[in-house]
């Protein structure tokens, strides 16, 4: 589509990267094939050498997945996108594309538990050190950069801490240090903010969440905004890629090394389901945000609720920055506290509509007790660092009628 760049976001959600095929099908065809035959040996050689575009093998690329990748790149305003088997595959593949043994990540301390585990434990086994700093303390963040720091990593809204860093300011810190900024935008989705507009060089999504929207798929994506100069002497391992592929240097290194070698590719069926789910992202995010605001207001006024953490509440310390960054929308996830872990368990068990499970971004309202689940392997000090307390419940507010969601929490709280 020639005029794709001029379409509004909502139109790109539906039409972006969608190329009409000979059958006239209006959905993206599921190309369930492991590999792709070519007429001549010369053709396949050209594709392997990168002289010609074409399919080789679904671990490397696949027409269904490429359709999803084109749409994600258009939505984020990036130069390229790479879809992966999961959100964690996206993070690990992207991070390992940049870092080598001896390098360091300066990471937000407000992280999804899986990312914290990857950074703190797994990458440490390969000689990559992670330093965790409060992303809302800009001075501390800047001071934590040292001669080995090669990447800054933050989440747009910390999950589950619900803090909101000033991403443009963090981007400035990264620029001054000559290192890239990678932003996990899973909680906000491309609808609330494009990472590129906030100054992110690379954007990560767990597409399993709001992009899919129905809890039917595990997937991830890395979006390369083409904004970082990989020819920098701080990244000598990028030199051949920066020379040959210029603004695609990061995507090229990721695809030709980490994505190819680790093999965390999505199944074509999952890519198809994501192209279906993403069409309604805009409408869904509006409802997730308005329902979350309704529920946050109800919870805050309930006598059994000790505290509510949602950036949409006017007295949240992150209300102003979230409003500015995300167009006065505050996402579909909130946390709140009751009296104790025991009470939070009783509350979860009393909920009739909300489902008790480890996910966010579903059409259904979801709850979880993070301390005993996602963060169960961490010490109390580590949980405090991640913003997880024993009495905390995380809610991913769904698309049901807000009165039904509130009624469910109301009856559960009244039963305590």
């Amino acid at each position, binding site marked *: 589509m020639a005029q794709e760049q001029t379409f509004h976001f909502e139109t790109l959600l539906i039409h972006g990267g969608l190329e009409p095929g000979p059958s006239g099908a209006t959905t993206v065809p599921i190309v369930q094939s492991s590999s792709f035959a070519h007429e001549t040996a010369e053709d396949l050689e050209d*594709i392997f050498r*990168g*002289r010609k*575009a074409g399919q*080789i093998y679904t671990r490397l690329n696949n027409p269904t997945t490429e359709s999803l990748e084109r749409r994600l790149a258009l939505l984020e305003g990036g130069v390229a996108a790479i879809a992966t088997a999961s959100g964690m595959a996206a993070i690990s593949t992207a991070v390992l594309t940049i870092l080598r043994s001896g390098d360091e990540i300066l990471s937000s301390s407000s992280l999804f538990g899986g990312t914290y585990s990857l950074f703190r434990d797994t990458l440490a086994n390969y000689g990559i050190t992670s330093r965790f700093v409060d992303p809302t303390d800009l001075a501390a963040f800047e001071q934590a950069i040292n001669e080995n720091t090669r990447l800054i990593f933050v989440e747009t809204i910390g999950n589950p801490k619900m803090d909101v860093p000033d991403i443009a300011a963090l981007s400035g810190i990264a620029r001054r240090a000559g290192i890239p900024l990678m932003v996990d935008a899973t909680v906000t989705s491309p609808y609330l903010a494009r990472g590129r507009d906030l100054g992110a060089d690379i954007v990560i999504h767990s597409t399993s969440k709001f992009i899919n929207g129905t809890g039917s798929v595990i997937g991830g994506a890395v979006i390369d905004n083409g904004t970082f100069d990989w020819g920098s002497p701080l990244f000598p391992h990028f030199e051949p890629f920066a020379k040959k*592929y*210029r603004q*695609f240097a990061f995507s090229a290194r990721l695809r030709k090394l980490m994505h190819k070698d680790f093999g965390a590719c999505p199944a074509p069926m999952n890519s198809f389901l994501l192209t279906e789910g993403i069409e309604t992202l805009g409408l869904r995010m509006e409802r997730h945000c308005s329902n979350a605001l309704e529920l946050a207001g109800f919870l805050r006024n309930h006598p059994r609720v000790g505290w509510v953490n949602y950036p949409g509440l006017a007295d949240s310390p992150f209300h102003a920055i979230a409003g500015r960054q995300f167009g006065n929308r505050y996402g579909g996830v909130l946390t709140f506290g009751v009296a104790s872990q025991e009470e939070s368990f009783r509350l979860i068990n009393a909920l009739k509509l909300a489902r008790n499970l480890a996910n966010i971004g579903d059409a259904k309202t979801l709850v979880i007790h993070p301390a005993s689940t996602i963060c169960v392997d961490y010490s109390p000090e580590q949980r405090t660092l991640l913003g997880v307390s024993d009495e905390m419940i995380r809610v991913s507010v769904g698309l049901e009628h807000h009165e039904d969601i509130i009624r469910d929490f109301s009856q559960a709280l009244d039963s305590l």
Partner: protein
Amino acid sequence: MQLTVNGRPAGIEDKDSLSVTALLDELKVKDALYVTVELNGEIIDRPVFDNTVVKDGDSLEFLYFMGGGR
């Protein structure tokens, strides 16, 4: 005009010169959004595709980062 594209001869009828953008269109290069273009051994930056002229005798290489090899 006669060009060498990816090491093989390629003829463009009725044209003496073309911009890189027009050439990608003329050759119906697939996924042109993602291609890196090397003209006579020099990588051409994407923002100047419109202003860079390809003429008779030039040699071009197209590079994709999506393929299998390096």
